[in-house]
């Protein structure tokens, strides 16, 4: 059962003169008996199998960046996920097979042109699509680990607390709806006005339903009301001292008005919010769009950097972002995760169903702002604090640890930006040279 390829791959990497931080991580991971672990460049990847461990066990507290640490936890939890989608993981993995990965809408031009009114309607009313997006969103929320009890900042266990969640590329609001069901308040951004219109319609509909329900039941509280009041996440209304706006009657809890709000915006131009605004961010099936240039003045890397640096800023200290995307190639995955790492995000990529070409899902799971103030500059720090964080800016202090290929590429990129004459990147760049002694 124990699969050692991950480890050997990893130690191989270390052999190629990686930072001590990575070594530390490797030893951390090698304590595992069952895992699939590898890297894109310096970015840790955790692959989950249907028979694999629960993520709670995998991403244990404090060990971000693919921090798998304790065996016992892992073995006690044979299934991928505890609550949500995976009760029939094997069957769902086969039904999830026909995602749009075979066709690449990203290649057809600008997202707002692809997701026009017709496509938006089609997208939103395809029950297959709805099912897939729902499953992915459930998983993303699980990875955010703020699901009410025990939020990021460790607020009281047992007491649900909604979070303010940014949904980037919210589309027709399928992902937002799931956030809503989890009780969160969300704000969705999308570049396609037609997708947003569909989302808007749904919210309008919910609003009307909620309004109608509150009218019908304006007469007084009855058994049903009590039933709703039993929900432990709705304390506010249980407070008898709360002023009632509805002529002295209790307001109905269900159906409730939507908790989302919408914004027409292109994430590639940087998120337009004040710093430290959101408790979390999700993005479902949208990020890969930034890897393509749809007009002559769009540069993928620039747009990704704008997106990530603004995301870093608008997230609260220690808040997480889980961004599910469909990389066309490994290069895209590397590009995305390196941009995330460069602006300071710690984290890695979680891959579900790694062995299925079609059901495979990549989740960039990152945590921002953790140690902005008190962190040591990872470029200067030796060892621990740099491990698994900003790996690509790994320290090169120790003897025998050379300049990594990533480091060289980055340096060359910087030089180029400064307008300096820099040699082309080739397959020889940063290649291992024979040692001199």
């Amino acid at each position, binding site marked *: 059962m124990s699969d050692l390829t991950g480890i050997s791959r990893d130690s191989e990497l270390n052999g190629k003169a990686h930072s001590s931080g990575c070594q530390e991580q490797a030893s951390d991971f090698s304590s595992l008996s069952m895992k699939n672990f590898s890297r894109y460049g310096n970015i840790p990847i955790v692959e989950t199998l249907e028979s694999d461990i629960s993520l709670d066990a995998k991403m244990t507290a404090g060990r971000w960046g693919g921090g798998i640490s304790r065996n016992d936890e892992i073995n006690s939890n044979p299934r991928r996920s505890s609550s949500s989608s995976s009760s029939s993981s094997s069957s769902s993995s086969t039904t999830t097979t026909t995602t749009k990965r075979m066709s690449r809408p990203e290649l057809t031009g600008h997202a707002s042109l692809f997701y026009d009114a017709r496509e938006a309607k089609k997208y939103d009313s395809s029950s297959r699509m709805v099912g897939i997006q729902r499953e992915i969103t459930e998983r993303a929320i699980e990875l955010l680990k703020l699901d009410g009890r025990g939020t990021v900042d460790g607020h009281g266990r047992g007491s649900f*607390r909604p979070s303010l969640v940014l949904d980037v590329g919210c589309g027709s609001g399928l992902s937002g709806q799931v956030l809503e069901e989890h009780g969160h308040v969300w704000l969705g951004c999308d570049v396609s006005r037609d997708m*947003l219109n569909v989302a808007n319609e749904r919210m309008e509909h919910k609003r009307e339903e909620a309004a109608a329900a509150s009218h019908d039941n304006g007469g007084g509280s009855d058994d049903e009301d009590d039933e709703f009041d039993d929900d432990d996440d709705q304390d506010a209304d249980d407070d008898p001292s*709360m002023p009632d706006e509805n002529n002295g009657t209790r*307001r109905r809890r269900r159906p409730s008005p939507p908790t989302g709000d*919408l914004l*027409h915006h292109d994430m590639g*131009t940087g998120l*337009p919010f004040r710093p430290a605004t959101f408790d979390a961010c999700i993005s479902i099936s949208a990020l890969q769009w930034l890897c393509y240039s749809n007009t002559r003045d769009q540069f993928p890397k620039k747009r990704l950097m704008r997106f990530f640096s603004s995301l870093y800023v608008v997230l609260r200290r220690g808040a997480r972002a889980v961004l599910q995307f469909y990389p066309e190639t490994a290069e895209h995955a590397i590009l995305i995760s390196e941009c995330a790492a460069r602006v300071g995000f710690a984290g890695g990529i979680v891959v579900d169903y790694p062995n299925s070409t079609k059901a495979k899902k990549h989740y960039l799971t990152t945590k921002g702002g953790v140690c902005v103030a008190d962190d040591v500059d990872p470029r200067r720090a030796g060892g621990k604090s740099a491990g698994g964080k900003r790996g690509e800016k790994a320290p090169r202090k120790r003897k025998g640890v050379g300049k990594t290929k990533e480091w060289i590429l980055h340096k060359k990129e910087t030089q180029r930006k400064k307008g300096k004459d820099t040699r082309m990147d080739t397959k020889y760049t940063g290649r291992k040279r024979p040692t001199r002694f």
Partner: protein
Amino acid sequence: MRLLTHNFLRSNVKGTENGYPLIIEVTTVRCEESPVDKEFLLGLIPKVDYSALRSAVRHMGPHCDPPLPDLPEVLPSAVGDVPSLDDATISILHRVLFDVYLVEGYLVCPDTGRKFPVKDGIPNMILHEDEI
């Protein structure tokens, strides 16, 4: 667009310093009612820019039915870890943050004057590449 969203929104068009708060030009607003989540609201208050909210309410207030009252100049004890607000204040804060929507109008960048149209409740914050 809710005033909660407005409170977090800022313009990042080229040439802005703060781009905050966006000036609201109202054409139509909508008011509705949603359940108050006291805990959530209390958690939110420290993040809300109160003076921006207050001026937003002043812009939107007259268009609402019934008109929104002005918010108190300062919140009783919004500073500190646990803001202790009385229920009346909580309910008015909830109302202005969650239940009042700008449906049609403009958001104007205070630094550059760039106008962002709001249609059908959705602000258009799209920037052209040469505006960044």
